[in-house]
Protein backbone atom coordinates (compact mmCIF):
# COMPACT_ATOMS: atom_id res chain seq x y z
CA UNK A 1 0.00 0.00 0.00
CA UNK A 2 1.31 3.46 -0.97
CA UNK A 3 1.05 5.77 2.01
CA UNK A 4 1.35 9.36 0.82
CA UNK A 5 0.87 13.03 1.58
CA UNK A 6 -0.73 15.24 -1.05
CA UNK A 7 1.01 18.63 -1.21
CA UNK A 8 -0.59 21.69 -2.88
CA UNK A 9 1.06 24.98 -3.77
CA UNK A 10 -0.78 28.19 -4.75
CA UNK A 11 -0.10 31.41 -6.66
CA UNK A 12 3.49 32.69 -6.38
CA UNK A 13 4.61 29.55 -4.52
CA UNK A 14 3.36 27.39 -7.37
CA UNK A 15 5.20 29.53 -9.94
CA UNK A 16 8.38 29.50 -7.90
CA UNK A 17 8.32 25.71 -7.51
CA UNK A 18 7.12 24.96 -11.02
CA UNK A 19 4.43 22.54 -9.81
CA UNK A 20 0.96 22.78 -8.25
CA UNK A 21 0.41 19.37 -6.70
CA UNK A 22 2.63 16.47 -5.63
CA UNK A 23 2.26 13.23 -3.81
CA UNK A 24 5.08 12.65 -1.33
CA UNK A 25 5.71 9.42 0.50
CA UNK A 26 4.55 9.75 4.09
CA UNK A 27 7.52 9.08 6.29
CA UNK A 28 6.78 9.01 10.00
CA UNK A 29 10.05 10.88 10.59
CA UNK A 30 8.83 13.89 8.54
CA UNK A 31 5.62 14.50 10.36
CA UNK A 32 4.86 18.25 10.38
CA UNK A 33 4.16 20.83 7.66
CA UNK A 34 7.38 22.61 8.64
CA UNK A 35 9.41 19.46 8.05
CA UNK A 36 7.76 18.81 4.68
CA UNK A 37 8.36 22.46 3.70
CA UNK A 38 12.05 22.20 4.51
CA UNK A 39 12.30 19.16 2.23
CA UNK A 40 10.75 21.13 -0.66
CA UNK A 41 13.58 23.68 -0.63
CA UNK A 42 11.40 26.70 -1.53
CA UNK A 43 12.85 29.30 0.85
CA UNK A 44 11.78 30.42 4.32
CA UNK A 45 8.36 29.42 5.68
CA UNK A 46 7.85 32.90 7.13
CA UNK A 47 4.61 34.57 6.00
CA UNK A 48 3.30 31.33 4.49
CA UNK A 49 0.06 29.83 5.83
CA UNK A 50 -0.50 26.11 6.13
CA UNK A 51 -3.74 24.23 5.57
CA UNK A 52 -4.20 20.57 6.37
CA UNK A 53 -7.30 18.95 4.90
CA UNK A 54 -8.68 22.42 4.12
CA UNK A 55 -8.24 23.79 7.65
CA UNK A 56 -5.72 26.52 8.48
CA UNK A 57 -3.36 25.10 11.10
CA UNK A 58 -0.01 25.83 12.69
CA UNK A 59 3.10 24.62 10.84
CA UNK A 60 4.02 22.30 13.69
CA UNK A 61 0.80 20.31 13.82
CA UNK A 62 1.51 16.58 13.39
CA UNK A 63 0.49 15.13 10.00
CA UNK A 64 -1.32 11.89 9.29
CA UNK A 65 -0.82 9.59 6.32
CA UNK A 66 -3.22 10.62 3.52
CA UNK A 67 -3.40 14.28 4.63
CA UNK A 68 -3.77 17.04 2.05
CA UNK A 69 -1.20 19.68 2.91
CA UNK A 70 -1.38 23.15 1.27
CA UNK A 71 1.16 25.98 1.43
CA UNK A 72 -0.40 29.43 0.93
CA UNK A 73 1.54 32.64 0.22
CA UNK A 74 0.33 35.87 1.94
CA UNK A 75 -3.31 36.60 1.08
CA UNK A 76 -3.98 39.59 -1.18
CA UNK A 77 -7.71 39.43 -1.92
CA UNK A 78 -10.53 41.86 -1.21
Amino acid sequence: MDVVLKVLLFASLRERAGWAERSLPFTPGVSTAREVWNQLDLGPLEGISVAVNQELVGANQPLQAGDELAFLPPFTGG
Partner: protein
Amino acid sequence: MTGCRVEVCPDPFDPWQQLALWGGDEAAAAIFIGRVRPTTTDGRPLEALELEHFPGLCERQITAMAQRLQQEHRAGPILVLHRVGRLAPGEPIVLVAVQADRRGAAQRCSAALLEQLKHQAPFWKREWCAGQGTWLVANTPL
Protein backbone atom coordinates in the same frame (compact mmCIF):
# COMPACT_ATOMS: atom_id res chain seq x y z
CA MET B 1 -30.49 36.58 13.00
CA THR B 2 -30.34 35.47 9.39
CA GLY B 3 -28.17 34.21 6.64
CA CYS B 4 -24.72 34.92 5.35
CA ARG B 5 -24.54 34.43 1.59
CA VAL B 6 -20.97 33.99 0.35
CA GLU B 7 -20.04 33.43 -3.29
CA VAL B 8 -16.79 33.20 -5.18
CA CYS B 9 -17.65 34.25 -8.73
CA PRO B 10 -15.67 33.10 -11.80
CA ASP B 11 -17.69 35.51 -13.98
CA PRO B 12 -18.29 39.29 -13.79
CA PHE B 13 -21.16 40.39 -11.54
CA ASP B 14 -23.29 43.54 -11.56
CA PRO B 15 -23.24 44.77 -7.94
CA TRP B 16 -26.53 46.66 -8.15
CA GLN B 17 -28.38 43.77 -9.75
CA GLN B 18 -27.02 41.39 -7.11
CA LEU B 19 -28.03 43.75 -4.31
CA ALA B 20 -31.50 44.16 -5.78
CA LEU B 21 -31.92 40.36 -5.89
CA TRP B 22 -30.58 40.03 -2.35
CA GLY B 23 -33.31 42.36 -1.11
CA GLY B 24 -34.03 42.92 2.57
CA ASP B 25 -35.45 45.95 4.31
CA GLU B 26 -33.66 46.36 7.63
CA ALA B 27 -33.25 49.94 8.85
CA ALA B 28 -29.57 50.12 7.92
CA ALA B 29 -27.45 48.66 5.13
CA ALA B 30 -23.72 49.35 4.70
CA ILE B 31 -22.20 48.24 1.44
CA PHE B 32 -18.66 48.22 0.11
CA ILE B 33 -17.64 47.62 -3.48
CA GLY B 34 -14.02 47.26 -4.55
CA ARG B 35 -12.98 47.56 -8.20
CA VAL B 36 -9.84 46.96 -10.23
CA ARG B 37 -7.58 50.06 -10.41
CA PRO B 38 -6.44 51.18 -13.87
CA THR B 39 -2.76 51.06 -12.88
CA THR B 40 -0.39 48.56 -11.32
CA THR B 41 0.95 49.12 -7.81
CA ASP B 42 4.09 50.61 -9.36
CA GLY B 43 2.05 53.00 -11.52
CA ARG B 44 2.07 51.40 -14.98
CA PRO B 45 -1.12 50.86 -17.00
CA LEU B 46 -2.80 47.63 -15.92
CA GLU B 47 -3.85 45.16 -18.58
CA ALA B 48 -5.74 42.84 -16.27
CA LEU B 49 -5.88 41.67 -12.68
CA GLU B 50 -5.90 37.93 -12.12
CA LEU B 51 -7.43 36.50 -8.97
CA GLU B 52 -6.80 33.00 -7.70
CA HIS B 53 -8.31 31.32 -4.65
CA PHE B 54 -8.16 28.05 -2.72
CA PRO B 55 -11.59 26.58 -3.51
CA GLY B 56 -13.47 25.17 -0.57
CA LEU B 57 -11.27 26.52 2.21
CA CYS B 58 -11.82 30.05 0.90
CA GLU B 59 -15.63 29.94 0.95
CA ARG B 60 -15.65 28.30 4.38
CA GLN B 61 -13.21 30.85 5.82
CA ILE B 62 -15.34 33.76 4.59
CA THR B 63 -18.57 32.21 5.84
CA ALA B 64 -17.01 31.60 9.26
CA MET B 65 -15.73 35.19 9.57
CA ALA B 66 -19.07 36.62 8.38
CA GLN B 67 -20.99 34.56 10.96
CA ARG B 68 -18.60 35.54 13.77
CA LEU B 69 -18.85 39.25 12.91
CA GLN B 70 -22.62 39.05 12.43
CA GLN B 71 -22.95 37.77 16.00
CA GLU B 72 -20.41 40.20 17.42
CA HIS B 73 -22.12 43.25 15.86
CA ARG B 74 -25.70 41.89 16.17
CA ALA B 75 -26.04 42.40 12.45
CA GLY B 76 -28.67 40.98 10.10
CA PRO B 77 -28.18 39.43 6.64
CA ILE B 78 -24.71 39.55 5.08
CA LEU B 79 -23.80 39.21 1.41
CA VAL B 80 -20.23 38.67 0.18
CA LEU B 81 -19.33 38.30 -3.48
CA HIS B 82 -15.71 37.95 -4.58
CA ARG B 83 -14.41 37.55 -8.12
CA VAL B 84 -11.77 35.15 -9.30
CA GLY B 85 -10.30 34.83 -12.78
CA ARG B 86 -9.11 37.56 -15.10
CA LEU B 87 -10.56 41.05 -14.45
CA ALA B 88 -10.36 44.23 -16.51
CA PRO B 89 -9.72 47.68 -14.94
CA GLY B 90 -12.92 49.05 -13.38
CA GLU B 91 -14.52 45.63 -12.88
CA PRO B 92 -15.92 44.81 -9.43
CA ILE B 93 -13.66 42.52 -7.38
CA VAL B 94 -15.50 42.39 -4.10
CA LEU B 95 -18.88 43.30 -2.66
CA VAL B 96 -19.58 43.24 1.09
CA ALA B 97 -23.08 44.18 2.26
CA VAL B 98 -24.38 44.11 5.83
CA GLN B 99 -27.88 44.88 7.04
CA ALA B 100 -28.64 45.73 10.67
CA ASP B 101 -31.14 47.57 12.80
CA ARG B 102 -28.56 50.29 13.59
CA ARG B 103 -26.34 52.22 11.21
CA GLY B 104 -23.27 51.85 13.46
CA ALA B 105 -23.57 48.07 13.59
CA ALA B 106 -23.98 47.83 9.81
CA GLN B 107 -21.02 50.15 9.13
CA ARG B 108 -18.64 48.58 11.65
CA CYS B 109 -19.51 45.01 10.67
CA SER B 110 -19.08 45.77 6.97
CA ALA B 111 -15.68 47.44 7.51
CA ALA B 112 -14.43 44.66 9.83
CA LEU B 113 -15.52 41.95 7.39
CA LEU B 114 -13.72 43.67 4.51
CA GLU B 115 -10.47 43.78 6.52
CA GLN B 116 -10.76 40.11 7.48
CA LEU B 117 -11.48 39.21 3.84
CA LYS B 118 -8.33 41.02 2.76
CA HIS B 119 -6.07 39.47 5.37
CA GLN B 120 -7.55 36.08 6.28
CA ALA B 121 -9.12 34.62 3.12
CA PRO B 122 -6.96 32.62 0.66
CA PHE B 123 -7.12 34.88 -2.41
CA TRP B 124 -4.13 35.99 -4.46
CA LYS B 125 -3.81 38.82 -7.00
CA ARG B 126 -1.53 38.93 -10.02
CA GLU B 127 -1.15 42.13 -12.02
CA TRP B 128 -0.74 41.79 -15.77
CA CYS B 129 1.12 44.53 -17.60
CA ALA B 130 2.68 44.33 -21.06
CA GLY B 131 2.08 40.58 -21.15
CA GLN B 132 3.86 39.95 -17.85
CA GLY B 133 2.26 38.84 -14.62
CA THR B 134 3.45 39.89 -11.15
CA TRP B 135 2.03 38.40 -7.96
CA LEU B 136 1.25 41.00 -5.33
CA VAL B 137 3.04 40.49 -2.03
CA ALA B 138 0.64 42.54 0.13
CA ASN B 139 -2.67 44.35 0.09
CA THR B 140 -3.17 48.09 -0.37
CA PRO B 141 -3.16 50.02 2.92
CA LEU B 142 -6.47 50.96 4.52
